[in-house]
């Protein structure tokens, strides 16, 4: 999983930071340590793939506050909380606010790795979905108004003849428009066309 994203490790304790990044790097996970939540927020760019592994209780901004700040900025990076203070109420609050997972120190390295792999996978999938959606959107942008009209009607399941009579054009013209839409959207079949129209809503 070398190229699948970075674990942004935030902990005020130098021992924990150093040992965890050593362990994770030995397991092949790229890690970027931060001394506190503030410096992470300053440095982080949303386009960086990865997930956050943060201590809950730190001087200054706490793990929960970091989570809220990330959400406030529309950053959807998965956050895994670490605590030396296993406390049910805090765990509930963190998970309710969308934390990816909540782990109690000291952690079993197998469990930690599993959770982090899941978090990275979720981040990867989210990015992939966003990317395919934005490329589909870009392609739909290139359609003319009439072509978009025809695409909507075809996606709704109407046959060519009915589309033609609704729009007051000949079925032959509908065929031509349809072929151009297929070409512009790079679809090979009608089914693919309908699926793409569906995903970009």
């Amino acid at each position: 999983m070398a190229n699948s994203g970075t674990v942004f490790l935030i902990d005020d304790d130098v021992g924990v930071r150093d040992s965890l990044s050593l362990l994770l790097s030995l397991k092949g996970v790229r890690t970027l340590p931060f001394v506190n939540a503030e410096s992470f927020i300053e440095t982080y760019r949303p386009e960086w793939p990865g997930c956050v592994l943060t201590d809950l209780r730190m001087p200054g901004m706490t793990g929960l506050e970091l989570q809220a700040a990330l959400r406030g900025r529309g950053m959807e990076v998965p956050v895994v909380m670490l605590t030396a203070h296993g406390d049910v109420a805090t765990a509930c609050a963190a998970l309710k606010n969308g934390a990816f997972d909540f782990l109690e120190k000291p952690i079993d390295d197998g469990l930690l790795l599993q959770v982090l792999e899941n978090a990275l996978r979720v981040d990867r999938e989210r990015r992939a979905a966003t990317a395919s959606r934005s490329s589909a959107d870009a392609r739909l942008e290139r359609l003319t108004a009439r072509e978009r009209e025809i695409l909507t009607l075809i996606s709704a399941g109407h046959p060519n003849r009915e589309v033609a009579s609704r729009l007051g054009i000949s079925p032959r013209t509908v065929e031509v428009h349809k072929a151009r839409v297929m070409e512009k959207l790079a679809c090979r079949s009608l089914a693919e066309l309908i699926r793409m129209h569906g995903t970009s809503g």
Partner: protein
Amino acid sequence: MNDSSTTEIRRQGLKLPPQSWLLGAGFLTLYLLLDWASYVEPLRDTNITPWHPNTGLVMALLLARGARWAPLVAFGIFTGELLTGEGPSPWQVLAPTSLYLAAVYACAAWALRRRGLDRPIGTPQGAAWFAGVTAVAGGFAAAGYVAILVSGGLLNSSEAWSSVGRYWIGDFNGIIALTPVLLLLKVDRAPLWEEIRRHRRELMLQALGAVFGVALAFALAAARDVRLFYPLFAPVTWVALRHGVPGAMISVSLVQAALLAALALTPGSIPLFDVQFPLLSLGVTALFLGALATQHDRALRQMHDQDAVLQRSMRFAVAGQLASALTHELNQPMTAMLSYVRSAELMTEPLARVDERLAATLRKAGEQAGRAAAVLRRLREFYRGEGARLEPTDALSVCARVAEALRDRMRRSAVEFELRNRAGLPSVMVDRTQLEIVIHNLLTNCLDAFDALPARGSRGRRIELAAEVRGADVLIAVDDSGPGIAPNVMDRLFEPFVTNKMTGMGLGLSLSRTFLLHQGGDLWTEPSRLGGSRFVVRLATEPTPQTSL
């Protein structure tokens, strides 16, 4: 009254347990003995004597066991009149007087039992009711008894008023002196014996004082015809104030017994009737003083008990906070250690063939670190206990109670305390014990700060506690005129193990803040207008979802 308790009473009425037979027999024996012993200086041709300890016994029985015993009382009175005196009255007089007296005493006992006075007297109110009802009952008993004698032709009507007075004072005195003492038998007597053992020397001195008083009264009466009973008040007052109702009433009965013994030894020196009035005022005074002392003792003891409970729960909470802080502090290095060990395991995988013990050793090191972490977790869970129990609470009354428990300490530290009360505070949703701990902590912090000051300066030592409403919250502020918070601890004031006290652990404020945060409240500090520190407690008036750090 429900059916089951009615049948209960009926069953008891029909079939008396053996103890009741024993009690009845004991009562009759003691009654007749007292009746015989107190048959002194009767009014001519009648059985009207000026001293009735037997009535005290009657009242004690009826008070302790209820009006069901009235028939036995009537029988006792009848037998007593029959056996003592210079010849029995005709039964037409004996029967109605016995029944009448038993009825009057039963009514008095019923009235007192309704007030909860079937137990030893413990308050001045109780003493007042006891003395009042007894005086009235004595009046009724005396008037009725004399009326029956006059109508039976046994007493000249010209002597009626003096007879009523004589009978009344005998009854009243007998009850005041004997009934409270006998009622002591109803409760656990171990503390009484313990008290006697503990104060043996003091009690000897007090008894000596009483003997001296009695001797003085008689010596003066014999030598110079002066009736001086005031010296008796000193030892009895002393006993009453020191030992409450039990001591007071025991000493009154002993003084009565001593006086009567002295009267019996020196016939004719003082008429008994003359002794009765000082004795009566002695009894009533001792009863009231004793009740006051008992009430005061009880209030003090309750205050100390409450303080002890608070101290205990505070120690437990402190231990919990300690465990929690320790877990946090040790879990960090433990996490690092485990991760280093796992890393070392990974790094030494290629070397495993060189020495297989290496991998095993590292695995064991990891296991031991995990074991230590598990111990910490168990420790913390043990002290975590139940969560806070939020209930609507009057925050000011909690503050007042805590301050009251600390009043002695404040006095010792020469601190002036003021509870600036704002009326009309809404009740807050808190765990009462935890709020007590928080307030106790803040107040003792102020007191500790004052105590740490070198000498009593000219500056007034002052603590103020004020409450106000802000939005949906109640704010309680504790201000003091002490030295304030040292700058070097200011930033980390609410962290565990931070303190500037010589003997503190630095858990009080951290604990208090944790409590309040868990209840949707908060604790912070501000500069005080009194010159020292100011801590503000915020409490929610409505239940909030429990939030955490």
